[in-house]
C-alpha cells in the first residue's frame, strides 16, 4: 500500500489506500518499518489519497514515529476531511507536523 521516493534527502512515503483502518494497520506498520530501516530518518507521510483513518491506523502511525527515534522526523502531508479531524480531536496535530502538501513538508524537513 506504500510507494516512496527520496526528494532533497527526505523520504516521501505515499499511502495508496483510501482507508488505513484496523484491517490495514498491521501491514501498514510492517511496510513503514521496512522504509524506516532503510536508513532514512527524515520522512514525509503523504495521506492525500486517504479518506479514513481509525484509531488503529493512527496508532500505527504513532508507533512508526516512536520507532524513528529522537533524530528522526515524521511529518504528515495532505491530511484532509475526516483524517485531519481525527488528528485534531486526538491532539495528534501537536505531535506531528501537518502540512497541506508534500512540497511544503519536504521543504520544512530539508531546511
Amino acid at each position, binding site marked *: 500500500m506504500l510507494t516512496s521516493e527520496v526528494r532533497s534527502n527526505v523520504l516521501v512515503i505515499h499511502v495508496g489506500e483510501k482507508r488505513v483502518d484496523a*484491517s490495514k494497520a498491521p501491514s501498514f506498520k510492517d511496510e513503514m518499518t521496512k522504509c524506516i530501516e532503510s536508513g532514512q530518518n527524515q520522512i514525509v507521510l503523504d495521506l492525500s489519497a486517504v479518506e*479514513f483513518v481509525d484509531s488503529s491506523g493512527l496508532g500505527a502511525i504513532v508507533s512508526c514515529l516512536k520507532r524513528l527515534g529522537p533524530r528522526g522526523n515524521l511529518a504528515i502531508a495532505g491530511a484532509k476531511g475526516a483524517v485531519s479531524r481525527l488528528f485534531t480531536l486526538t491532539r495528534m496535530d501537536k505531535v506531528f507536523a501537518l502540512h497541506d502538501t508534500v512540497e511544503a513538508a519536504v521543504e520544512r524537513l530539508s531546511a
Partner: protein
Amino acid sequence: MASSISLMIDSDLDKVAHIASAVRGVCASLLSTDDADAIELSVVEAINNVIKHGYHGQPGKDVQVLVSLQPDRVVIEVLDRASPMQSDLLDQATEDRFAFDETNLDEVPEGGMGLALIRMNMDEVEYSSAGGENRLRMVKKVGPRAS
C-alpha cells in the same frame, strides 16, 4: 417518522469498511459532513472493539448494527454475543485519553483510543448486556436539516 435498517457482518476486520459505507450511505444525505464523519468513526471503532476484544479476533461470529433515523437524532446500536466488556471501561474513557504531554513521546497513545473517540463523537453512549447479548447504543443529535 423513524426509519431503521439492520445490518449484519461476520467478525472480520476486512468487512468493517462495508458497514461503514452502508451506514454512511443511509445517513449521509441527512447529515453534515462532520456529523457523518463522527458517526462513521464511532461505528468503526465500536465494531473493531467487538471483533478484537469481544471475539478475540475469531472470525465467523455475528456483529449486528442497527441504524435508526429519527427527526432529531441518529441512533446506532452495535450488538454482539461475546463476553461482556467491563462496565467501568466506558466510564473511564474520556478525552483525558488525549491530554498527554506532546513533548513526551512515551505518553502518546498507540492504542486504547476507541471508546474515548466514541464518547467524544457521539452525544449519548450506553452499554448494556442481557440474555447473552451486549449492546452499545450511540446517539448523535442532529440539527434541523436543510430541505
